[in-house]
C-alpha cells in the first residue's frame, strides 16, 4: 500500500511520460498509415523530408506557444510577428548589402536583428499583459494587427524581396542537409529538446505550470509571476524569430500574406499535443507531434485526388477532431491500465 521511494523511481515515471505522448503518437501513426495507403509516395524519403522541414516553422513556434499556454496565456500575434520580423530582416540585409556588399556577415546581421526583434516583440506582449493587466487575448490580437499592418506598410502593399546575392549565401540554411537531415529539421529538433528540458527539467517549466494551474499559489510560493509570464512571451518571440530565420531563405521574401493563420496552427498543434488551453499542464513532446500531425494532414490532402479540393478544409477539420478524440481515448485506456 505505502509507496516507497524506490517503487516510484525512474521506470514508472518514464513509462507515464511515454503514455502521455502516446495519444498524439497513435494519431500520427494512424495518419501515416492512411497516407501510405492513399499514396505510397507518402513514405518516400523526399516526402518525409518535406513534411519534417515544413513542420519545422509551425513546430518551432508551437514549442514557444506551449510555454505561453501552459502559463495560462495565449499569443495570437505569432504569425504576424513572423511576417514582420521577416520583413525587417530583409530590409536590414538589403541595406547592409548596399552599404557593405555581400558577405556571410550580411546573413549574421539579419539573424541577429531577427533575434532582437523577436525578443523585443515578445517582451512587448508580456509587458502589456502583466504590467498593463490587459487580457493576453486582446494584447496579442492588437499586436497581431499592428505587425501585419507594419509589414504591409514596409512592403508598400507588395512583397519585400531579399537581395539575390545575399540570398545565395543564405539559401543553404533552408535547403541544405547535414547527415541527410535538412537544417531546419535540425533546428526544430534542437528547439524541441531545449524546450522539453526547459519544461520538464528546470524550475522555469515548473513555474509555468504552477502559474497556469493557480496564479495565487504561484505568487504565494514566492514565484515572480509577472517575470515568468513575460519570459514565456519572450521565449515565444525567440521561437518565432528562429522560425523566421529558417523561413526567410526558403522564398527570400516577406509580404502581408506571410504567416497568415500560423497562430491558429501553432495553438492547434499545442492542444492536439495534449497541453490544456486553460494552462497548468504542458507537453512539449506532444506539441512536436501535433505540428507533425497538422503538416501531415495537409500533405496527405495534396497527395490524393479522391477528395474534392473544395472539401479539403472539411477533411482537415474531421481529422483534427478525430485525432484528438483518438488521443483522449487512448489516454483514457492508458490510465485505466496504469491504475490496474
Amino acid at each position, binding site marked *: 500500500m505505502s509507496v516507497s*521511494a524506490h517503487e*516510484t523511481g525512474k521506470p514508472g515515471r518514464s513509462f507515464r511520460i511515454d503514455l502521455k505522448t502516446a495519444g498524439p503518437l497513435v494519431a500520427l501513426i494512424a495518419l501515416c498509415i492512411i497516407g501510405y495507403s492513399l499514396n505510397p509516395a507518402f513514405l518516400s524519403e523526399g516526402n518525409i523530408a518535406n513534411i519534417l522541414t515544413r513542420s519545422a516553422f509551425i513546430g518551432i513556434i508551437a514549442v514557444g506557444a506551449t510555454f505561453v499556454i501552459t502559463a495560462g496565456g495565449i499569443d495570437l500575434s505569432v504569425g504576424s510577428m513572423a511576417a514582420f520580423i521577416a520583413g525587417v530582416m530583409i530590409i536590414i540585409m538589403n541595406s547592409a548589402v548596399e552599404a557593405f556588399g555581400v558577405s556571410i556577415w550580411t546573413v549574421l546581421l539579419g539573424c541577429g536583428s531577427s533575434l532582437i526583434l523577436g525578443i523585443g516583440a515578445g517582451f512587448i506582449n508580456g509587458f502589456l499583459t502583466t504590467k498593463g493587466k490587459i487580457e493576453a487575448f486582446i494584447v496579442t490580437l492588437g499586436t497581431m494587427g499592428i505587425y501585419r499592418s507594419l509589414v504591409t506598410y514596409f512592403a508598400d502593399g507588395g512583397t519585400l524581396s531579399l537581395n539575390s546575392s545575399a540570398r545565395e549565401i543564405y539559401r543553404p540554411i533552408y535547403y541544405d542537409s547535414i547527415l541527410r537531415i535538412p537544417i531546419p529539421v535540425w533546428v526544430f529538433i534542437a528547439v524541441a529538446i531545449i524546450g522539453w528540458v526547459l519544461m520538464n*527539467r528546470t524550475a522555469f517549466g515548473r513555474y509555468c*505550470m*504552477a502559474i497556469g494551474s493557480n496564479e495565487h*499559489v504561484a*505568487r*504565494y510560493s*514566492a514565484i515572480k509571476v509577472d517575470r515568468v509570464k513575460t519570459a514565456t512571451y519572450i521565449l515565444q518571440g525567440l521561437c518565432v524569430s528562429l522560425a523566421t530565420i529558417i523561413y526567410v531563405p526558403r522564398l527570400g521574401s516577406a509580404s502581408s500574406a506571410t504567416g497568415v493563420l500560423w497562430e491558429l496552427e501553432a495553438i492547434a498543434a499545442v492542444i492536439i499535443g495534449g497541453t490544456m488551453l486553460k494552462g497548468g499542464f504542458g507537453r512539449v513532446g506532444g506539441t512536436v507531434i501535433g505540428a507533425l500531425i497538422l503538416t501531415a494532414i495537409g500533405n496527405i490532402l495534396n497527395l490524393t485526388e479522391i477528395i474534392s479540393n473544395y472539401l479539403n478544409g472539411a477533411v482537415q477539420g474531421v481529422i483534427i477532431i478525430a485525432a484528438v478524440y483518438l488521443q483522449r481515448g487512448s489516454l483514457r485506456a492508458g490510465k485505466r491500465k496504469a491504475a490496474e
Partner: protein
Amino acid sequence: MANAAGETAPAILAANRISKSFGEIPVLFSIDFDIHPGEVHAIIGENGAGKSTLIKILSGLEQPTSGTITYDGQTVTLPPNGEAEAMGIVVIHQELLLAEHLTVADSIFLGRELTRNGFLRLREMREQAAKILDTLHVHVDPDARINTLSVADKQMVEIAKAISRDARVLIMDEPTAVLSVAETETFFAQIRRLSAKGVAVIFISHKLDEIMELADRVTVLRDGQLIATVGNQDLTPDSIAQMMVGRELSNLYPPKHEPDVDAPLLLSVTNLSAPGLKEISFELRRGEILGFAGLIGSGRTAAAEAIVGLIHRTGGAVELRGAPVNFTEVSQSVAAGLAYMTKDRKGKGLLLNVGLQPNLTLLTLAKHMRSGFLDGKSEVKALDRAVRRFDIRARDASVRVGQLSGGNQQKLMLGKMMESEPEIIIMDEPTRGIDVGTKQQIYHIIAALAAEGKAIILISSEMQEVIGLSHRVLVMREGRMAGVLEGAEIGEAQIMRYAAGIKQGGDDERISA
C-alpha cells in the same frame, strides 16, 4: 522545550499593536503577539475573529494598517508573496494552497527546487519528498498529481511541504481540520520534534484538546480584539471556550434521542463498490444519525459520492425508501431528497469569486424562481435565514466568498445544503474549521433534524463528534467496512481498533437493525 528558556529568550517574531482594515472595515485592533524559539503558541478564537488575518500579517502576505513587526529583535517590513519564507517564516494556509496540476513532489519543492547547473534534481526531490511523506505516514505517491488526492491527503502534502522547509517560525492555520486522530498524532510528533530543535510554532485550531496537548501559550482573539495570552498551565478546555465565545459552554453535544425501532427504512445500501470502495452495506432509518469513522483515505467520502452519483458505482445496490436507485447526477439525488455536503469547500463546495447569495442558492435556484425568472427578493430572504440560522459573519455585504473566514465559508456551505431541505443528509466533515460556540449550535441543529425525522450520515474525522452525536457508527478501513458499533459500544477505543485494523468486523457484527 521552550518553557524553561522560553520566558527569558527574546522573541523571534513579534507583532506590536497591529491593526488591520480591509477598505473601511477593521478586522484587527491593536494586537500584541510574540513567539519564542522552541515555543508552540496557539491562537484561538471564533470564526472571523481575525486569526488568519493575523498570521497573514505575521508572514508578510498582508501588510498591517498600523503597528510593527519585529523579527529577531529588528523592526522589519516583511516581504510579500511568500518571500518571507527565505527568512525562515513558513506558513500553511487555512485554504489549501496547492497547484492542482503539479505532482506531489513538485508541490513540496515549489519555489525552492533543488537544482544542479540549472537543472532540476528530480530524483533527489522525489526521494526527499517520499521520505518526508513517510515520516508523516502519508501513503501518497510523490508523482501523483495533486488533483487526484483527497482533501486530507492534500492537507498532509501541505504539512509535508511546510516541515520540509528550513523554518525558524512555522505558522499553521488549522492544519488538522480534516485530519483524523491517527494522522494528527504523527503530525504532532513532527511538530514536537521541530520545536525541540528550536523552531517557533504558531498554531491555529478549533480543537481545544489539541490546544491543551500541544500549546505552551495560547492567545485568544475575539472580534479582532486581543482577549488574553495565557500559559498552558492556566488552561482548561472550559476556560478557553469561555474566553473565546464570551459565555459559558455547557452541553456541547445535545442528548441523543434513539430513533424508534420501527422507524421506516430510508436508505439501504448493499455491497456498494466503486473505485476506492469495496462492498459497503448499511441501512439508515428515519431519525437516525449514522456516523462514519475511519482514517483518511479509508473510503468514507468515496462511499458518500458513490451513493449520490458523483462517482461511478461498480457494483452493489442502493435503495431509497425501498425503491432501488442509481443516481448518475447530483440533481437526481437532490430531487429524491438526498443531499451530500462535500468537505472540499474550496474545490467543490463554493464559488470563491462570487458573493454569498449566489453561492447559497446555487443548489436550489428552482426555489427562487418566479415565472421563470430569478426572484432576487426571495434569494435575499434565503440568505437572511441562513445568516441567522448558521450565524454567518461577514464584515461587508459585498465580500466575495473567498474573502470570508474559513469557518464562515463552512457555515455558508451548510446553509447551502440545508436550503434543499433534504430528508437524508450526508455531511462530510460538517464542522471543519468551525469554532466551538458555533459547533455547539450545529450539533444541536443536527440533533434537531434527526428528531424531526430526517436521517443523517455524519462523516467526521473528529472522533468526539462522531461519538457524541451518532446512534450507530460505521468504521471504515481501506475502502471496506471494518465494523459497526452501536449504543454503549461506541467509544474511542473501539473505533480506533477497527480503524487501525486491529479488529475485523465478523458476520455477527453486521448491521442488523
